[in-house]
């Protein structure tokens, strides 16, 4: 058999193009369904793990899936917002502790998560470098953000306008990075965390500008009397919050009315959870949802789609096997002269079959090895792949 393998090896290495095509086809047809299964398993695991850790979510009425994906994976946008008042109502009920979330803005492609310090304890996120948020305009960043943007503590990060037409409205805010979180292998690795008030500054609900009562530039002042000073658009607005200008930052309106995308509710116990859910049952403004239930429903749909994809892969795989068979038969025809020759020299038909089997074996082994290596890569990076391909 070693001699057959030797001759077969010489054949497959000599016919590089043919061998490459065969190996690629077999590898792909084996790899695709297996990789899909690995990614689905990993995504199910990730979705269920994070959903399981989040007991209840309160948000505006609408798509529960959007609410969960936005609050847990910072991916989809929620169409309706709630206000800070919702968080206060939960706290006031004494049934649960609330963690506000305002996930709407981005900074250099990464979601900006406006929340409170409780969020970090809740998700067991630890600071690996630098310190935690302390004042308005500061942010801590996930491990992926730090790695991909090359940022660390004491660097700065500028928020992105919501869209191109936003240039006249929300100003980009230059945030100070105070810390980098330790890797958690979750969506938190790819997020920028700020206080909810900082997120409101990004929206323009809070701002800081030079003191119009003290400005000496007369062209800025439109009108001045004993009680009021009216300034024009030339007035300098700060785009960075520093210790020097922190005092000038202020919010217009009642902070209880400022927006949130969701509130994570951490009930005291099962009874409190049931009571809290009952409280929102008939509410026309809010919905309360168990992320676990939403993910269950999502996974059901995903597996339904996967079964269709599996069927397609089986059909494509069958077609590929038929094509490979055709290639093999045509190749045998082309090699009929060679087979006749070795038969005339004194080779048995069994040896001819063994030579051909050795070629198939080598191609199958190389394909299997390649497939295993690719699967190992997918498996090793499944968390990151799921987050970048599926939970975007």
């Amino acid at each position, binding site marked *: 058999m070693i*001699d*057959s393998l*030797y*001759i077969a090896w*010489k*054949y497959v*290495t*000599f*016919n590089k193009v043919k061998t490459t095509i065969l190996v690629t086809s077999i590898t792909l047809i084996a790899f695709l369904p297996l990789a899909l299964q690995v990614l689905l398993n990993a995504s199910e695991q990730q979705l269920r793990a994070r959903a399981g850790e989040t007991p209840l979510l309160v948000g505006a009425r609408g798509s529960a899936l959007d609410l969960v994906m936005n609050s847990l994976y910072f991916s989809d946008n929620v169409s309706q917002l709630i206000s800070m008042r919702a968080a206060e109502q939960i706290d006031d009920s004494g049934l649960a502790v609330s963690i506000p979330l305002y996930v709407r803005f981005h900074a250099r492609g990464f979601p900006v998560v406006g929340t409170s310090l409780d969020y970090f304890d809740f998700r067991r996120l630890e600071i690996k470098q630098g310190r935690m948020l302390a004042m308005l305009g500061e942010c801590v960043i996930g491990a992926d953000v730090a790695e991909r943007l090359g940022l660390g503590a004491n660097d700065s990060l500028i928020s992105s306008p919501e869209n191109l037409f936003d240039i006249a409205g929300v100003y980009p805010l230059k945030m100070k990075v105070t810390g980098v979180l330790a890797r958690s292998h979750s969506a938190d690795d790819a997020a920028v965390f700020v206080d909810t008030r900082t997120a409101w500054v990004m929206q323009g609900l809070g701002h800081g500008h030079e003191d119009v009562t003290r400005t000496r530039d007369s062209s800025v002042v439109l009108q001045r009397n004993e009680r009021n000073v009216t300034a024009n658009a030339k007035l300098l607005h700060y785009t960075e919050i520093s210790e020097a200008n922190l005092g000038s930052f202020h919010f217009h309106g009642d902070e209880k009315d400022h927006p949130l995308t969701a509130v994570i509710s951490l009930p005291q116990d099962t009874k409190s959870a049931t009571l809290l859910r009952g409280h929102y049952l008939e509410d026309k403004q809010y919905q309360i949802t168990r992320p676990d239930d939403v993910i269950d429903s999502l996974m059901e749909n995903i597996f339904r789609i996967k079964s269709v994809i599996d069927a397609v892969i089986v059909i494509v795989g069958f077609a590929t096997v038929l094509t490979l068979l055709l290639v093999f038969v045509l190749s045998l025809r082309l090699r009929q*002269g*060679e087979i006749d*020759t*070795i*038969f*005339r*020299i*004194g*080779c*048995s038909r069994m*040896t001819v079959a063994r*030579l051909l089997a050795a070629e198939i074996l080598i191609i199958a082994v190389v394909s299997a090895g390649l497939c295993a290596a690719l699967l190992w890569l997918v498996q090793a990076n499944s968390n990151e792949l799921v987050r970048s391909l599926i939970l975007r």
Partner: protein
Amino acid sequence: MISIESLQFAYPQDGFSLQIPAFSVPAGQKLAVIGPSGSGKTTLLNLIAGIYRPDTGHIQVAGAPVHELSDAGRRDFRITHIGFVFQDFELLDYLSVLDNILHPYRITRALKLTAGVRQRACELAGQMGIGDKLQRHAGELSQGEKQRAAICRALLPQPKLILADEATGNLDPDNKLHILDLLFDAVDQHGATLLAVTHDHELLPRFDRVVDFHDFRQPA
């Protein structure tokens, strides 16, 4: 070396038949077989080599009754006692020249590939003038070099009988004579018998004996 008696063979498909009442070749003889295309020359070589089994009659090669041997026996006999040289050389392009020469040793258990065999293959290739091309792929050789490699492959197991089927048919005139000389030298050196089918009448004077095959053919 070869003894044939009352041989009859017919292809079932086209009705072609071959009858040879008696034919013998003494050991060490260089015999040329001539005849028109389709007269059965290659069929005779295949019968002597045991690739085909005669319908009736006896074929003895080196004392062995080839017609009585089983399929496996004929294959083992062929690979150990007979060297084949083909018109189209029939080398495998994906193997090196050395691997082509050693090929019979890799496809049967009747021959053992040892270090001594490798050494002999290199020496044989050196004698044939292709000693410096052993690691090249067969496809990189010239026609003449290919036929030298094919002769090396046929001679390496030290067969008693060399069957050459139009061995010089694809060579230019200069190469033709040179290859024939090399083949004759090698046959002499190994004490083998040569039975060569040829169309080339220029080469006939160099053989010990010439048989016109037309005499054997029986129309269907």
